[in-house]
């Protein structure tokens, strides 16, 4: 018997906290006359997106036992898809505006040529590559945010699960996929501007007159809604019989297979669904970040994703949120140079230099001594029925 999702205490608490947090941030933002700076609102909004992709990671790793080191690639792909539209539409506006000064009205070819030069001049191109065919249509690009990561995950997952690549082999394979993707995007002729990536993504076409402080609020709220929806969806998936089978696969794949379940189908579903969630999170993240380049997709990013989930606590969805929010915000604080240096007399510890070391050591300690992560603390407070 499936209990209603909304009767689960953890879901209710998370949703309530998220709502309260959203209302508080919106109320205190600059746009509403508060003191929270626009950049901080953006950082918080981006953190919500990271929480969403962490939930996807928790679903695929914490519940299904697939340690994917490639989910940040799906995240990046989502960002690229929405970034293409933003960049194309924005450049088109600028080009059309500039053409108004000319005596003759521009021909469509002239506009396309100007956009091509504007966007791809930096990588020595002038033609708009074929993968930008739909870049002028917001709806198609939004569809691609879901389709491109989804189809890549479907094909990759089908190949991998079909031949029963499991455990560390799968992890290495997903890492190889991420590396291949980022190396491919680093090429200038990849059609996505090589290592320059896509930039100026904070300027949303159609919202020119809206100040960034308001745009940041829109994206913050959108991210919060996406996170809430993602959380409910994930909680729904793992709560029913489906969730039990998935957890069974995590704990003993062979046994579940012998019970007659099509293990590959379950894994493929979870893998693809989480890739789609990651893509959506990325599509919300990068307009707030303003720039995306292939370095974002480097294998290390996906490993960090696993680190967040592990520190937050695997196999519990709120753990993923805690881990992602805690570690990424702390990272921003320490590496942003805002943390005070510690003077030891003989040497000064600068956090910009030592934060990574601390993170690495902390991560080893969590893995060794607290496999349940920060989320495990909840177990001390709440006695399980």
């Amino acid at each position, binding site marked *: 018997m499936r209990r209603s999702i909304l009767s689960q205490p953890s879901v209710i608490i998370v949703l309530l906290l998220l709502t309260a947090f959203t209302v508080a941030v919106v109320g205190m933002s600059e746009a509403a006359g508060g003191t929270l700076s626009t950049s901080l609102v953006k950082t918080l909004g981006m953190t919500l997106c990271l929480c969403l992709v962490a939930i996807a990671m928790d679903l695929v790793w914490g519940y299904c036992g697939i*340690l994917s080191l490639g989910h940040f690639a799906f995240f990046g792909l989502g960002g690229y898809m929405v970034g293409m539209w933003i960049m194309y539409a924005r450049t088109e506006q600028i080009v059309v505006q500039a053409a108004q000064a000319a*005596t*003759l*009205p*521009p*021909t*469509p*070819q002239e506009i396309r040529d100007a956009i091509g030069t504007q966007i791809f001049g930096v990588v020595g191109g002038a033609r708009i590559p074929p993968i930008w065919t739909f870049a002028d249509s917001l709806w198609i690009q939004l569809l691609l945010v879901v389709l491109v990561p989804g189809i890549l995950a479907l094909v*990759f997952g089908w*190949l*991998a699960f*079909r*031949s*029963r*690549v499991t*455990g*560390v*082999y799968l*992890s*290495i*394979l997903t*890492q*190889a*996929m991420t*590396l*291949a993707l980022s*190396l*491919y995007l*680093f*090429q200038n002729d990849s059609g996505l501007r090589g290592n320059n990536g896509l930039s100026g993504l904070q300027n949303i076409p159609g919202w020119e007159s809206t100040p960034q402080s308001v745009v940041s609020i829109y994206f913050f709220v959108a991210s919060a809604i996406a996170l809430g929806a993602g959380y409910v969806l994930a909680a729904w998936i793992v709560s029913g019989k489906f969730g039990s089978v998935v957890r069974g696969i995590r704990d003993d794949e062979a046994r579940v297979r012998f019970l007659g379940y099509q293990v590959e189908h379950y894994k493929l579903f979870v893998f693809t669904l989480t890739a789609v969630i990651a893509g959506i999170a990325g599509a919300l993240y990068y307009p707030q970040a303003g720039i995306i380049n292939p370095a974002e997709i480097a*294998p*290390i990013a996906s*490993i960090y994703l*696993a*680190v967040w989930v*592990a520190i937050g606590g695997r196999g519990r969805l709120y753990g993923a949120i805690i881990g992602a929010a805690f570690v990424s915000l702390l990272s921003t604080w320490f590496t942003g140079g805002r943390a005070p240096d510690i003077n030891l007399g003989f040497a000064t510890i600068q956090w910009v*230099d*030592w*934060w*990574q*070391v601390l*993170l*690495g*050591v*902390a*991560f*080893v300690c969590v*893995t*060794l001594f607290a*496999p349940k992560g920060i989320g495990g603390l909840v177990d001390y407070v709440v006695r399980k029925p």
Partner: protein
Amino acid sequence: MRRVNTVVEGLAPSTFRRAALAVLAMLLVAVATIEGALAQPAPTPIEELLLENTELIQESSRRTIEPAIAAIADSGLEGADVVLQRWEARDLFVRESDGRFFLAERGDDRDTYNLFHVVTKEPMGTAGRREVDQIKPNSGIRALIAAALVKFQLTNPDPAVRRGALEALLREPSAEQLDPLRAALGRENDPFLKGAMERAERLLTVRFEEDEAKRVEAIESFAGDLSVEARATLNPLLNTTLKVSKEGPDEDENVARVLTPGSENLSFDAAYDLLVRRDLAPRIINAAARDAALVEHIENGMVAGVPVASLDTREARDAAYSRLEEQGAVTQTQTEDEIADLIASFTFYEVYSEPEAITGAVLGTIAAINRSVAGYGFLDIALDALSLASIYFLAAIGLAITFGVMGVINMAHGEFIMMGAYTGYVVQQFIPNYTASLVVALPLAFLVTFAAGVLLERLVIRWLYHRPLETLLATFGVSIALQQLAKNIFGTQARPLTAPDWLGGALVINDVVAISYIRIAIFVLAIIFLVLLLFILNHTRLGLEVRSVRQNPRMASSMGINPDRINMLTFGLGSGIAGIAGVAIGLFAKVTSDLGSGYIVQSFMTVVVGGVGNIWGTLAGATLIGFLQKGIEWFNPSNTLAAQTYMIIFIIIFIQFRPKGIFALKGRAAEA
């Protein structure tokens, strides 16, 4: 004479006394000269020749000097080469009174020169300091003299001189050198030099011989010659000129190819441009010019009755332009069809400047050269791939032990490679001799990383033997901590790890194939490790225990083996090898804190592709990956990023079909 004039011009009224003294001195000198001349013998033939050319030689201008040099060089007179050499060495002096040349040496007092014969150095009397002029050829003239001297030097008894002359000749070949070279070739005894001369003779024959048959023979003799010189000599013979005519090529023209306008080699625009340049077609008015004409004719927002706002397509603009044409407001332009018809009525073709017999031979020879270049290029790629494979093997072999034999994923493996490289760097700070420091660094890197590996195993990995995924994450934590530590200690800029000189060069096999000694050294190192590890694992007590713990730890421990100790040693061994690989990699790569992370994914793939738990598998994996990457680069040499991308995709697909790698363990060993 010139000098006297200078003196007179320099005269100023206020220095009358000094001028008077000067005139007196000149008179004295003139008397002395006449005395000297009287005492001299008649000029020898070579001196006669010099006398004939005295004005040119004295003028010393690069533009006019050539006949003089040629006259001396071609005279066939005894001592002509000596004269040229002395001229080049600025030893010649000319006597102003009669233009005769001498060698001169400063005499007992500083106002007189002792004169000697230009060839024999016989004393020829004396002259005053003002009476003789040193001939100072400038560098241009000296180069001309040197070229002329080549023919004498080619027969010089000193082989070093002959070799130098041959090299000079090849730097600036000319038709005149062909005959002296052939003459010298007949007299040469040194077999090495004879070979070089013979080759130079063929190179010159290809370019300057008049007899066509001889040229063809010389051209064909270069088939299979890989040198740049051969290609540089042959290729210009295939120069073509682009011609266009209505009738097509003449009978006697050696047509390279007929070009179709609109093809890759000749675009329509280029074809039409050519016609315009030959005055065969009117100048075309391009789109931009037409648009400008439209803008000029805007009146009240209309162009020829068409509203400006509607001119937002090419067709609309062209229609408006035709209207302007009809009104006679703008010059007539060609329509696309007219242009196409005009171009179609002409034949475009390229003509060789050389006759057909020559170009045919050159084409055949170049094809043969290209075949052997491609063959050696393939060999070169194969050697490259082999060295890349040995690098991957070195980087992955330590991982093959920890991952393959123990089943432990060590993400910090790359950082052990980095630690090895930094160990090498630190050792070089204390031991300046590169060879000695390398000898110290290799075992030291092993010790350092062995200790680090044992420490990691004791502190972290031991607790996670049954949770491989968590080992992966924990060692990743170690990896980022170590990377940042290295950054804090050594800074972000690359540190040099310099190879000793004897590893510096390259083994050059021919113009296409060359292998640097570092790569050979890494290959040798890889082989040593392969043999060493095979020996340790298969023929020592430690290897036996490692294998037994790998297969069944509990059974092994009941046989009196301590699995803890064995795991610790195995992990240390794998890490230590990573350290040595780090020193080797540091020799050719930049030593930075992220040196290792560049190899970690490739290393894992090497192990996985090869088959876990098998040294031979790692070898096979490294070979496959190395050759694959270079093979892909061969098809697309400009793009190593793409090569890596495709290689990884290939590996992902490969693992679909052989999930356990090339050498899969079978039976009980696979279960462990």
